[in-house]
Structures are given as structure tokens and as C-alpha cells.
């Protein structure tokens, strides 16, 4: 519940000035805005605004503290929960969406302690700022600063959260995998046939989970500008050799022959070396996931005048045509993957990396002479005119 008190305009105007968003405004603007403001007192746990509802009021905190909350729902069927993403104290505002399209609140806001707020009528404020461009510009400037600050803060929180989560999740998994490997190796006594098979399945599933956690963290951290800062000169043949090393064990376990086709000498190219290795490794791993035992996966790399072309071919069952447009989507699993374990993050990671290189990643099914599907071909195209950060800096000088 709130009680509303009427204040003389000049007092309210003075209070408005103490808020960061109105601090630069002239006296006359503040008095005019004060006309459509009211003061409200709220108790702890009062809900001030609800996420996604029409944003019709901007709030300025005079005293107390508000929590910004966001609805979080994991999966379509779980119950949504509210997570606190930040706090707002005296002088700060809540409900900036009132001034920004599409005018729906981006968060819910709850009082965490008894608070005194100034509620500014959104529609009246928008009209005033429309007709008083100077005041409008000043307020918008503050708003832009505030939004960019909140944006940076949320990215930092996310990155921090992910690094903690990833370590916290990976450590117990490493311990479990370590024990399983110890048992599988017979270092804790002999296992019978059935036990050994189960332990080996456990190792596969746990390893998969560990890789998935790594992928999720990677995916969330993977912003183009971040990848581009790692651009350097590298020799593509070295990267393909490293990827081969990454995939060697799986290939041996699945009895898949990896054939490499490279020119005898490779000119260096600019790109994010470690990330390109990830692209090739992911594509080869993906090819092996669906390839039958005893089959061949071909990795070829060559230069065309303007691009590096990387191709990965397999002799698997191909990808159902309906799935083709979606396979680079996060967590997408083609409908014919059957028992193959793992969520489909490898391809979406590959696509994000290729996109950051301003390149292209294409997929098609291969057909034999009878027109039947005989495998899948992934093609990556990386332009040869990318620049390292140093090269870009020199261009500006």
C-alpha cells in the first residue's frame, strides 16, 4: 500500500533535481515536470512495477531501496522464478522503459525496505520532453548512460557467473570421471564384463556433460568483437594438425579413418587461431558422431583467390532436409540422431566463430549415383582479407 502526499511544486522540483536523470535540467523544466509527479511511500515487499506490463510511470528513489527482478524460466514447462539483477537506491530511477520504446517494463521492481518514491507520469513526461527538446536531450543523455551501465553490468555479471558455475560444475564431474577411469583401468580391482561396459558408458556420458558445460560457457562468452581481438597470422595447416590431435582418440574408438587433403604449402592467413581450431575440431567431431564404424571422414583445406575453404565430408546418413535450416541453432538436435549423445552446440559454436570472421558456413547432403544420400558436406569459407587488431590500428594512424 502507498500513501500519496501533495507537495508544493518548488519543493518537489528541488527533490527532482537530486535525481541523476533530472540533475541537469533548468528550474522551469523541473517545476513543469513536478506538476505531474507525486510522492509515494511504500512498505517492504510492495511491488512497484511488473515486468512486461505497460510502462506508464517513472520512479525516482528518494529514500530506501528497490530490487530489480527478472523473470527466469528454464525450459517451456518449468515454473518461472524471479531473480534479482540489481538494486536501486536514492537518486536513482526505476522504470526507464517509460521513456523508451516499446514502453513495457523490462524488469519487475520490489521494495526491499520502506521507501519514499517520486512517481512521474510517463505520458505527461514524454509529451513534455517532446515539446522541450533541450530538456529531452539532457534526460535522454542520462538515460543512455544508465542503460549502457546496466548493460555492461549484466554482461560482467553473466561472465562472472558463468566462470564460477563452470568451475563448480566441472570439478565434481572431473572427480567422478577420475574415479570411473580408475575403475575402468582396473586400478581399483577387476570388473566383470557387465560392470566394465556400464562404467565405460558412464565415462562417455560424463565426458559429454563436461564438454557440454564447457560449450555453454563458451557460447555465452562468444561475442564477435571478443573473437576479433584474437585475430593473428597463422598457418592453417598447423591448425588442422591440432584439430586432428583433438579428434584422434574418438576416431580410434569409433574406428573412423580421417583423411586429410591439404596443399603442400600454406600461406598464412589472419583469423582467431584457437577458435578456428575449434571450428575444425567441432566439424570433424560432428561428422564422426553420425558416421558408421569403418567409414571415412575427409578434411580438406585449400585457398581460393579471396578465401580459405575448409571442407569436412562424412559417409553418414546425411541430415533430413527439414532439419537442414536449423542445424546451426543452439541446442538443436536433428531428428535422426538416434543414440548419438550430446546436445547440438558444436555447430552453433562453429557458426558463431565463422560469423565473427565475416565468413560463411554451408551444409549439404551428398548423393551417390543413384540419387541416395551418401553423406554430408560442411563447407567453411573464411575471407583472406581480415585484419589483425594491429593492422586495423595502423590504418587509423
Amino acid at each position: 500500500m502507498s500513501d500519496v502526499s501533495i507537495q508544493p511544486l518548488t519543493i518537489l522540483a528541488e527533490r527532482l533535481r537530486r535525481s541523476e536523470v533530472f540533475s541537469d535540467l533548468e528550474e522551469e523544466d523541473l517545476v513543469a515536470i513536478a506538476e505531474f509527479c507525486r510522492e509515494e511511500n511504500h512498505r517492504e515487499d510492495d511491488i512497484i512495477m511488473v515486468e512486461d506490463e505497460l510502462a506508464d510511470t517513472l520512479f525516482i528513489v528518494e529514500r530506501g531501496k528497490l530490487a530489480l527482478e527478472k523473470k527466469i524460466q528454464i525450459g517451456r514447462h518449468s515454473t518461472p522464478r524471479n531473480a534479482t539483477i540489481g538494486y536501486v537506491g536514492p537518486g536513482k530511477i526505476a522504470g526507464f522503459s517509460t521513456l523508451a520504446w516499446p514502453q513495457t517494463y523490462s524488469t519487475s521492481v520490489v521494495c526491499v525496505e520502506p521507501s519514499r518514491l517520486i512517481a512521474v507520469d510517463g505520458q505527461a513526461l514524454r509529451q513534455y520532453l517532446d515539446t522541450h527538446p533541450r530538456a529531452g536531450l539532457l534526460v535522454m543523455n542520462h538515460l543512455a548512460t544508465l542503460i549502457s551501465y546496466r548493460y555492461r553490468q549484466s554482461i560482467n555479471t553473466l561472465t562472472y557467473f558463468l566462470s564460477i558455475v563452470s568451475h563448480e560444475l566441472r570439478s565434481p564431474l572431473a572427480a567422478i570421471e577420475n574415479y570411473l577411469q580408475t575403475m575402468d583401468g582396473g586400478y581399483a580391482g577387476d570388473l566383470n564384463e557387465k560392470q566394465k561396459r556400464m562404467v565405460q558408458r558412464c565415462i562417455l556420458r560424463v565426458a559429454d556433460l563436461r564438454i557440454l558445460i564447457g560449450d555453454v560457457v563458451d557460447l555465452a562468452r562468444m561475442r564477435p568483437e571478443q573473437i576479433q581481438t584474437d585475430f593473428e597470422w597463422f598457418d592453417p595447416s598447423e591448425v588442422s594438425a591440432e584439430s586432428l590431435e583433438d579428434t584422434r582418440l574418438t576416431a580410434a574408438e569409433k574406428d573412423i579413418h580421417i583423411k586429410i587433403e591439404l596443399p603442400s604449402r600454406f600461406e598464412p592467413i589472419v583469423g582467431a587461431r584457437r577458435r578456428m581450431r575449434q571450428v575444425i575440431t567441432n566439424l570433424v567431431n560432428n561428422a564422426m558422431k553420425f558416421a558408421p564404424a569403418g567409414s571415412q571422414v575427409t578434411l580438406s583445406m585449400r585457398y581460393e583467390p579471396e578465401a580459405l575453404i575448409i571442407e569436412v565430408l562424412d559417409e553418414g546418413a546425411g541430415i533430413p532436409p527439414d532439419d537442414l535450416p536449423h542445424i546451426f541453432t543452439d541446442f538443436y538436435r536433428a531428428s535422426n540422431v538416434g543414440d548419438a549423445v550430446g546436445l547440438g552446440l558444436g555447430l552453433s559454436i562453429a557458426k558463431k566463430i565463422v560469423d565473427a570472421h565475416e565468413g560463411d558456413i554451408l551444409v549439404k547432403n551428398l548423393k551417390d549415383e543413384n540419387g541416395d544420400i551418401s553423406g554430408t558436406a560442411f563447407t567453411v569459407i573464411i575471407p583472406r582479407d581480415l585484419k589483425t587488431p594491429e593492422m586495423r590500428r595502423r590504418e587509423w594512424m
Partner: protein
Amino acid sequence: MSERKPYILVVDDDPDILDGILMILESQPYRLGFARDGKQCMESIAKDIPDLLILDLLMPRMDGWGVIREMRSEPRFSRVPIMVLTTVIEDASRRRYELETGMSMDVQDYVQKPTKPVDLLKRVEKLLAKVHV
């Protein structure tokens, strides 16, 4: 002296990892010791210098980077081979060490957890062989 068993000190704060690693190493004729954090590790090394140190990085009290730093600045321990065994990615780890100390991380092997027992034993053997040469 050729009969002397090589002494390996394993340092990890996770009791299960420690247990598993020791179980694998017990299959070989090694003398084994363990510590649960960097401080314990340094205390143990001061009493008995190992032929090989297997070291986790993220640990309470003193982390693995701290152990490497102390060992490499103390002449008595500076030549003990170190195998880092951790969930931390090698690039990130080396970068962190370089940023903190201005020196490159002087370790003889870097293994990302979890590792296959056969791989681990091979790498341990290789590091110990170098010591005896």
C-alpha cells in the same frame, strides 16, 4: 641408490580426485605423499623434497600458482619437476601466472583433468626419467 623408489607428492583439495590419482599411482613402485592445499604442500616439501610434484591450481589457503612461484624462487626446490593437473585451461592459466609474476610458468607438464590413467602414468614416468638422467 638405483633401488630407491621415486617420491611423488600429489596436491589437490578435492579428496576424491586425490584418492583416484593415488590409486592409479599405487600401481607403480612409487613412494607417495599428498597435501590438500598449497600451504600443506610447501610444509611437506620443506621436510622431504619430492622427485615429482603433481599439482592442482585452484585450492584454498595457497593456490597452485602460489606454489609454483614459491618453488621457483627457492633454489632448493627450483629443479623439482612439476606436473600441473587441473580443470583450468592451459592458456588462461599461463596468462594468469605471467600477469601476476611477469615470468613464464616454469612447469614441466600441464594436464587438464580428467586424465586417462594410462596417459597419466606415461607422463609421470617420462618426467621421472628426465630427473634420473
